[in-house]
């Protein structure tokens, strides 16, 4: 692959780093690592794309658009429930099914993400897409942990060996239902990212968690969650469970 072809392919590479594990970009990214001229172009190109995203997302939306959509949608919905008997019969059937479904679900439910974890992924996505900024930035995760502790935010007691070796990008604090949560983002050697989320409280949905990590796959994310005392941890990356396991060691 020459530089011209690499540029052609890399023009489809998203600036947030979401494509770092996509094999279609592997050869072009390898070429970037080998050729300093191409590397310079790639960095400039990512900066250009990031600026374009910011500019387009700053376009103002008409103030009455939302209300017009909500008002118009009411009259666009198909008319239903016209006969009271049909309405009550369907409602009764739905309630029965819900009770049965709830019984089955409680006995066979798969691993799932709790609300605070969904919000953590949302925060991480906004960081990756440059929609929000870090509270503090450093390539040294130890400095970020110290910053979080100094600001009374949840911070991991210690990092796993493999995670501790990675350069960090930054950290951010947020809250879920009043519970303080923090996230630290790290750069993996393959160009992708990995995120450690920490909360010192135990969200009600996570009280059954154990010290051994529980794994969940959702929308391309591999997520591990575990507890150590009153601290709950979540480690997440866009990739496979095996990739994630490496950073738990």
């Amino acid at each position, binding site marked *: 692959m020459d530089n011209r072809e690499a*540029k052609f392919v890399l023009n*489809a590479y998203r600036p947030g780093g979401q494509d770092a594990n996509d094999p279609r970009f592997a050869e072009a990214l390898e070429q970037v690592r080998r050729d300093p001229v191409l590397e310079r172009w790639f960095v400039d190109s990512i900066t250009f794309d990031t600026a374009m995203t910011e500019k387009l997302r700053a376009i103002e*939306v008409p103030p009455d658009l939302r209300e017009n*959509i909500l008002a118009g*949608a009411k009259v666009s919905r198909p008319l239903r429930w016209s006969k009271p008997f049909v309405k009550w019969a369907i409602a009764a059937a739905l309630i029965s099914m819900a009770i049965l479904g709830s019984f089955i679900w409680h006995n066979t439910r798969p691993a799932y993400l709790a609300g605070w974890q969904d919000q953590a992924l949302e925060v991480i996505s906004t960081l990756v897409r440059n929609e929000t900024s870090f509270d503090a930035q450093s390539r040294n995760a130890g400095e970020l942990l110290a910053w979080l502790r100094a600001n009374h935010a949840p911070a991991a007691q210690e990092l796993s060996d493999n995670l501790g070796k990675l350069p960090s990008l930054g950290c951010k604090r947020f809250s879920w239902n009043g519970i303080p949560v923090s996230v630290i983002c790290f750069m993996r050697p393959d160009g992708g990212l990995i995120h450690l989320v920490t909360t010192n409280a135990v969200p009600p949905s996570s009280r059954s968690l154990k010290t051994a990590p529980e794994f969940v796959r959702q929308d391309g994310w591999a997520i591990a969650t575990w507890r150590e005392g009153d601290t709950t941890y979540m480690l997440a990356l866009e990739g496979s469970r095996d990739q994630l396991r490496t950073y738990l060691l």
Partner: protein
Amino acid sequence: MSATDFQRLVDRQYAPLYRFALSLSKSEADAADLTQQTFFLWASKGDQLRDRSKAKSWLFTTLYREFLGRRRHEVRFPKIELDDVREEEMSILPNVNAFDSATVLQALREVEEPFRAPLTLFYLEQFSYQKIADMLEVPIGTVMSRLSRGKALLRQRLFSKEKLLGNKVVAFQSDKRVESNG
């Protein structure tokens, strides 16, 4: 879908959908109308979508189809090959931060439509090339080609606007551009 869920969906998606529509339609009124029409279609047909996690893709795809359906004349999409993209067009980058959003949008609107839609989806929502291919119903290679050519065309339009601004704009990390502006 309950009224509350619908309202949540509107709150999350109406602004990016409007911006996508605005890049396609060239008029704020048309863009607002396209956005509203897309949600009205969701209100009447959205129940048919079993996988609710695909609601966002459904909305963008439907808006694009609505846009295509409204065009009176048929546009033949030019076939763009890799050879058509000149090296120099891919090498020099204008300073986007020197422009306001309205100027950037104007430059984007000046890019021919077949390139504009994938470009806007790429920038606005950072959709992957795979997702853009699914939405626009074109092969992955075509998406990559249109992104590459579209970016080159966009840079040309921005360079034209740089010239209009004259010395107010400093070229973006390119010694060659600094000299030519100086």
